[in-house]
């Protein structure tokens, strides 16, 4: 099913929200209000948004260290996200997690993760639970090309394939793992060719074309819901930013490569598509949408600033459940 004009606008809105949220997060990190480390997803928004558009509210996802986009695409509240980045009590993790560890279990967002490959077996377990409960729920694991070389990737896909688990594995192949080029660490042209080795479908998609991502996501989700097992989707994409927002951090990627991908920014691609296809969508409309988003981002910062820091002793809470 192709995306309705209304859905396309919603997807555009989400992509632009991710971008504006992260631009602000980066600024506030550099300004000192956000601590630790921030990994931006800017340039890869079409992947999270295209995949999550094919999901139901009770479907579950898991993320990696680059998690803001996945959270927003699954519907996480911006206020509580920003409050977490600001280290405040009203953050999703009460200030325990920060940028690299946002989770909102109430919407099926099982968490961003600082361990490359760490989430892949966990989301496979969520898929197992869905299968055992017979709830027709689907579990989606987002990960990078770097994670596709980790043992947990291979072990999890093999189990999910063997047990026909309702899982969709989404590799966001941006050609780099921190400062190491993907071509130095895997020999196959397409990472998803490995799917054949597990006996499941492997699909390559233009990860900067949200409509194309949405198409393949629907197929994979339908297959999972039908009890036919997992699918491996490889979204070819690119991060427009360095690995982290740390000022002065190295970025060893070639300029021509960056320029190639900057010209394929997923947001203008969708804007152009909407304009051409529907005629009615205009730059003014996009501007109005962006103004609304900017107001939401401002509001999230105000919410974060108004939320108190946790008491120091709160460090001792939540080690164990009651």
């Amino acid at each position, binding site marked *: 099913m192709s995306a309705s004009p209304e859905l396309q606008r919603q997807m555009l809105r989400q992509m632009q929200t991710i971008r504006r949220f992260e631009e602000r997060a980066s600024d506030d990190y550099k300004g000192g209000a956000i*601590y*630790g*480390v921030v990994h931006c997803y800017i340039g890869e928004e079409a992947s999270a948004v295209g995949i999550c558009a094919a999901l139901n509210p009770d479907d579950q996802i898991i993320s990696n260290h680059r998690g803001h986009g996945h959270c927003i695409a699954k519907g996480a509240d911006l206020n509580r996200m920003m409050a977490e980045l600001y*280290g*405040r009590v009203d953050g999703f*993790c009460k*200030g*325990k*997690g*920060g940028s*690299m*560890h946002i989770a909102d279990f109430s919407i099926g967002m099982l968490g961003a*993760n*600082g*361990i*490359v*490959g760490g989430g892949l077996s966990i989301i496979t377990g969520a898929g197992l639970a869905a299968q055992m409960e017979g709830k027709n729920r689907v579990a989606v694991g987002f990960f990078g090309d*770097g*994670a596709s*070389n*980790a*043992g*947990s990737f291979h072990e999890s896909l093999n189990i999910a394939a063997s047990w026909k688990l309702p899982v969709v594995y989404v590799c966001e192949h941006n050609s780099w*793992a*921190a*400062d*190491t080029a993907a071509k*130095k*660490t*895997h020999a196959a042209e397409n990472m998803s060719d490995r799917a054949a080795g597990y006996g499941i479908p492997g699909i390559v998609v233009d990860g900067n074309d949200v409509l194309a991502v949405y198409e393949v996501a629907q197929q994979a989700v339908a297959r999972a819901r039908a009890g036919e097992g997992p699918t491996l989707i490889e979204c070819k994409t690119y991060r427009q930013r360095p690995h982290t927002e740390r000022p002065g951090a190295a970025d*060893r990627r070639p300029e021509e490569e960056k320029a190639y991908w900057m010209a394929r920014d997923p947001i203008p691609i969708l804007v152009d598509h909407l304009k051409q296809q529907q005629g009615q969508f205009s730059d003014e409309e996009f501007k109005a949408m962006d103004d609304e988003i900017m107001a939401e981002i401002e509001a999230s910062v105000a919410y974060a600033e108004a939320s108190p*820091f*946790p*008491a*120091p*002793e*709160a*460090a*001792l809470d939540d*080690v164990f459940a009651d």
Partner: protein
Amino acid sequence: MSMREISYGRAGMEALVEEMRRDPTTFHLATDAPPSLVEEFGEERIRATPIAENAFSGIAIGAAGSGFRPIVNWSMVTFCFVAMDQIVNQASKIHYMFGGQQTFPLTFRSSVGGGTSLAAQHSQSPYSMFMNLAGLKLILPSTPHDMKGLLKSAIRDNNPVLSFESSRLMGLKGEVPDEDYTVPIGVADVKREGKDVTVIALAWLVHEALAAAEEMEKEGVSVEVVDPRTLFPLDEDLMRASVQKTGRLVIADEAGPTAGAAAEIAALVTEDAETFKALKAPPKRVCALQVPIPYSPDMENHVFPDRNRIIAGIREVMEAG
């Protein structure tokens, strides 16, 4: 001896580069291949690995047992947990289990510690987990001098050595000799002499203990600061001698107290009859709180020990006897 000032991080790099020049059987495995190293040694010896710690740690073991001297950098200690099978089941036991037939000269480097709001997964000091295994040597330097000298010893050692390097100290400057030198594994160091209380401190907390000692000096309390420098083997003789002299013991560690290095040091030092008799007060551990490390700064600071908590610990043992 002519000396020069370099940072702790730089000292680690110099040890690596000098040992790689010295010994053509050395090579380097890490998910990152720094351009300066690739330029000097080539991609053959400076290998960019996939993010597959279990495999590349095992690959290092295999190459070590086949005539090479690999140096692995896990980056943060966090990432080595993916390789626990190779560390725990293989590296620590392989020499012993096969009756000493083959040597496995390898070095595993990683950074430890917190204090930078990186949250629970990226703020860990788990060296005591490895102390508990037989068959691994463990170093934990606190100064550029010790970093360079100990890392060279680690690389030259014919056993698996884990080098834990404090992320808080990477920028710390200090003097190192111009010429080649090593710091032997298993030898502690008195970082400051004193008469009234011994503070045995690890890594970053050596510096906090030195600051605490300055403060206590003003109150007329003379603090001896001892740095074990290696966690396996521990230099029990030097630590016991210090406590026999002062009669009081505080142990400071950035890790949590439970089954930690501080607990082992307390037991090792005080189970000796002579040292036990010399004690005027019960030993005191000053460690992190026993929780994963939280992100938000006030909570994080609350968890970690610092000079003030060391001072409180010193006061406690001074008052106790």
